[in-house]
């Protein structure tokens, strides 16, 4: 389970959200479902962390939001990735990979 209690994991949440949105605009609930589904139920995003993170990203200009209608014709707020968001995603992917490599190195040699 993913808990945004420290900087590392909070950054991870942002990375996951950005990556999800890179596929196309989605509402908050859709984001949680997507992450949960793609990670095969391993990662569950808490609503209590997701919305603050989304709004922070909106204020930082990484995403924009717009009211629209869901497939079930329900009013929902759709988040889009901005150009800045795309750049941020690329950077975070890169640093995530570095982290993974570093951790792998440590595991190999420790």
């Amino acid at each position, binding site marked *: 389970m993913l808990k945004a209690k420290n900087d590392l994991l909070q950054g991870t949440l942002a990375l996951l959200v950005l990556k999800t949105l890179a596929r196309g605009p989605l509402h*908050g*609930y859709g984001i949680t479902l997507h992450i949960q589904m793609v990670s095969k139920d391993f990662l569950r995003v808490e*609503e*209590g962390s997701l919305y603050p993170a*989304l709004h922070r990203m909106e*204020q930082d200009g990484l995403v924009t939001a717009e009211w629209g209608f*869901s497939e*079930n014709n*329900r009013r*929902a707020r759709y988040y889009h990735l901005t150009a800045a968001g795309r750049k941020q995603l690329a950077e975070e992917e890169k640093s995530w990979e570095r982290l993974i490599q570093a951790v792998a190195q440590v595991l190999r040699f420790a």
Partner: protein
Amino acid sequence: MSLISRLRGMLRREQLDHDLDEELRSHIEMRAADNTAAGMSPQQARYEAQKRFGNTTLLKEDTRGVDIISWLDEAARDFRLALRLLQRSPGFTIVAILTLALGIGANTAIFSVIDSVLLRPLPYHEPDQLVMVWENNSQHPNPHNTVSPPNFVDWQSRNTIFSSMAYIFDGRDNLTGNGDPQEVVVQDVSVNFFSLLGVNLLLGPGFTPENGQAGHDNVVILSYGFWNEHFAADPAIVGKSVVLNGHPQTVVGVAPLKFQWFIKDGSLTSAKPQMWSPFVFPQSWSNHKDMGRFITVVARMKPGATYSQAQTQMTAIASQLEHEYPDSQSHWGVNVVPLRDQISGALRPSLLVLFGAVAFVLLIACANVSSLLLARAASREREMAIRTAIGASRWRIARQLLMESLLLALIGGGLGVALAVWGTNALLAASPRNLLDLAAISLDLRVLTFAVASTLLAGLLFGFLPSYISAHSRISETLKEGGRGSSAANRRAFARNAFVVAQLGLALVLLTGSGLLIRSFVRLIGVDPGFDTGHLLTFKVSLPRAKYGKDPVCLAFFQQLLAKLSTVPGVRSATMESFPPLAGLGAATAVHLLSQPPLALSDLPVTNVQVVGSNYFSTMNIPLRAGRLFNAQELTEEKHVTIINQAFADKYLHGVNPLGQKAAIYMKSLSETELQPSEIIGVVGDVHQMGLDTVPEPTVYWPHPELVMSGMTILVRTANDPRLIAPAARAALQQLDPELPLAGVATMDQLLADSLSRSRFTMLLLGIFAGVALVLAAVGIYGLIAYSVTQRTQELGIRIALGAQRRDVLRLVLAQGTRLTFLGVAIGLFAALALSRLLSTLLFAVSATDPLTFAGVATLLAVVALLACFIPARRATRVDPIVALRYE
């Protein structure tokens, strides 16, 4: 998050709340729908969906992040905390608040004057379209030379840039039939004067176009003040008549309270008008060659026209006229001056210098408070470190400290505004007459806005550095070292040293400015006016033309008056002249010395003309340098003689003996001047006619019969206090004619003081500011050294215990102060060198880089600063080593 987006957040908060609510609701509904689809009961589905959110209110707050509500809430908490902290250290609080109040108050007071004189729109319709139009002779440059009436007529008919033009010239008339006879200042104006300025009269219809025709001009408009004082604000005044110089005039209007028209250049009375009367040019004024230049011209530009377009067109018209009337017009150009520049022109340099000075005072005050805050922050370093350790962010700590600064600034600013109200009144009371318009200055919204803005700016300015340093200190270090020797402490010490150096530098700049003005003033009052100003009573007598129209009658009257005055007990002698000295008034004209080749009228040299009565030179104590004075016969009939001053002889005669030379002085009609030139019979010493700060100009003196004038300034030399003679003088005048007022009674010493008042005023204010700066800088360096002595108590104790002498300790402590002082003085000297040029227009006979002044103020500042260091240094020598060592 930036403040801007936070503010935007505040404005959109409701929208945001609403959006968020809806977003969360939609999320819950979607989840519930899925849950139902997965087989839960609707109730259970909903409950589960909601539970995953936990506390939705809390979530909303988190989501909004540092949104405005919570921000305000925290700010309020900071505010209360700041208030408690300030209460806990009253000494610090009082010093800081008083310092700030002084700085902000002085700034606000000066700004209120600047605002009303330089910034606020003039009380006329579309004031930016109004310009003054002057003549200007390239041979004898005077950018504000009055205009000749025929030129005005030509300008008016030829220009296309002005929608209208008006003329003004003022004089003193005798008002009778309303209590005691009195002299009033009347501006004769063209009939369109009020409509051009766009003034709505308080009462009455004003001038009508037919008042602009000869024979229909017996009407007047009263100024508000005059109507109020002399007619008890009679609401039915319109239609009544007043008697001016024996002629009844119908009142057709009263001007509004705020309306004023006083342009010092070109004014013959140097006084504000009490009424306006339409004046029509007589036919005889249309000859260019015969008319002098004496009217003031104001014009309104057509909408959209610019000053430079107006100047270009008027210059073109002037060169046409120069071509058409070479005799009278060659070298005469036109100078278009925006009305605003005309009105504030003379005051602008002084006001800007004073504004700069008060800004410096505020900066010094900020440095002082900042320095105090730094000292306090050092003692609170542990508090801050602990707060950081338990989770306060840097921003949170900086904000807390900034809040304290702003609170100090606000209290100081509030007190400062009170001080400014008092200060503005004091400023007005101390300002010379006619310098500032009393009614126009008030503390209004604009001034308050300025005060609030400068308060906030000051708060941020002095609060920023201490907060920044505290917020960026490393907690681990601080907690380890017990608050001493940490990097923050080092940075603080450096900042405080820098502040003290800056303060000393700023103070030195102000002291230099003030020192230069003082020296300039001393030079000014050291100027010999050229005559004896002591025990001299002056007043004006103007004879109405209706009764004294014939020259012999006028001449005889003044002779009788002078004779009568000289028999008054206490009077040593009495005389008269056309224009009193030091008042900035005079008449000037072209002069042709017959021994020199003839020139066109406008190429001739120019001389001042003074018409004087008997005993003039002896009464005034003006020395005779060559030749002789007027004899009794020349003082009773026209004998075509004149006396010149030394400046005339030096400038126009170049060593040739002036005595016996003939001079055509173009003050009478052309034919009379050329047929009967005046013979120079004597040379007298120079008098500073236009003021002590101007060089005496070439002047010719005529005895009264040469040019009989109906208005003269009487000068009475008395044995004792001249003011005591005034009642007897009035009695003497009214024995001769009970209808005549004794006007403008003043002693010559008063006139002298008035002529110096502007210089004195600027000097006094800058002196006060420099004094405040000196005190603040001294307090600043004192505080620093005292603080460092307290910090070093232990070290000093050890040194003393190890055998250091008092002298060594003293030297050690003083060394720090001396270094800072010399650095500050050196920086200040450079800054003063760069800035004192700005003062040069205000200086008289002193260079802006006067080495004596610079050396003097640098020494003064250094001595004061070192004395301020000496007090804590002496305390350091008394450190008891036992106590100091036990301290830790």
